[in-house]
């Protein structure tokens, strides 16, 4: 497909992945992970995998982020690493 769009989204995905692993606030890491999942869903939709994109949008950007936020809520929120 249009390679400029795919290239831009790949760069954004890599930045989000590095960001989700580096921030010190676990709630921010969970939200960045949700954004990463949604960008992955867009990438798969561009490549023509519509079923996989649908699944990742509902699972990754929906339920998975909520489970992470629930786990962070029940444990601590800061980390030094």
């Amino acid at each position: 497909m249009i390679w400029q769009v795919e290239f831009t989204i790949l760069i954004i995905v890599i930045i989000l992945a590095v960001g989700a692993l580096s921030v010190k606030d676990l709630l921010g890491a969970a939200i960045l992970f949700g954004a990463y999942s949604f960008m992955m869903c867009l990438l798969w939709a561009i490549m023509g995998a519509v079923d996989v994109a649908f699944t990742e949008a509902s699972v990754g950007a929906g339920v998975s982020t909520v489970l992470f936020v629930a786990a962070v809520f029940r444990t601590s929120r800061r980390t030094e690493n």
Partner: protein
Amino acid sequence: MRAIGLILVVILGSVLVYGSLEFPPWGDPMSPACCHVSPYYIEKALEDTAVPNLVTAVLADYRGYDTMFETIVIFTAGIACIFLLRNFQKKTPQSRLYRHIPTGITLRIEKMGKFPETSAVFERIDSVWVPHDVIVKTTCRLIVPFIQIFALYVIAHGHHSPGGGFQGGVILGAAMIIFSIAFNLRSGIQRMQERSTVMLSVLGVFIYAATGAVCMILGSNYLDYSALAHILGVDPAMARSHGILIVEIGVGIAVMAVMVTLYYNLASAGRYDEGL
């Protein structure tokens, strides 16, 4: 640890990059992945199964055994989460928090006191209660029925559009989760109790396995849906389409129940009293 990680990542990355030099060009129709079984699936799936969505046809019919074990994996994850976290002891001295709605005063009643019965002016709140939730509650009340109808549409139209059992099941589970977040976890548990979620997940796996067993009883192989043509009275291609629909419903039910179970256990850390 970081140095080891960095060295490992660099070595593995360079090995993979070296391997990627041998790949076929991107989008090649003659690449090895596109040459053996998949032309058969693309050309014959519509006349064999009467299902235009190739991914659903391959997932639930040609590779139906894999999908059955995937459903069992999801069910096992729900059961494992219950085994890990579920804590049945009640915290013994219970002091409940009540809020008087007309005046906004919060009461904390210790264990020797008398709890107010359910009435319109006293509501029971959690220890992490926030005010100003009218917008969230009203929006949630308006939107949850539409989410559930859309989820049922996704399951039923898996043959003709992207979708299917798994996606619809996750959206149904997300509808229950959004209800439990907007109101509190106790009202969510009142609507769908723990017993219902566990029984529904078992029911979903049972529907899938039972369809295969019925096909075997009727004389054909396990999960060979064309044997259902005898009891449904249609030709074998339509029987396979109906068989795919039945197993997708089974997958959807199981996935919904497991998503709700995971959320209930994680948000309340096994105690099922308070939550997010």
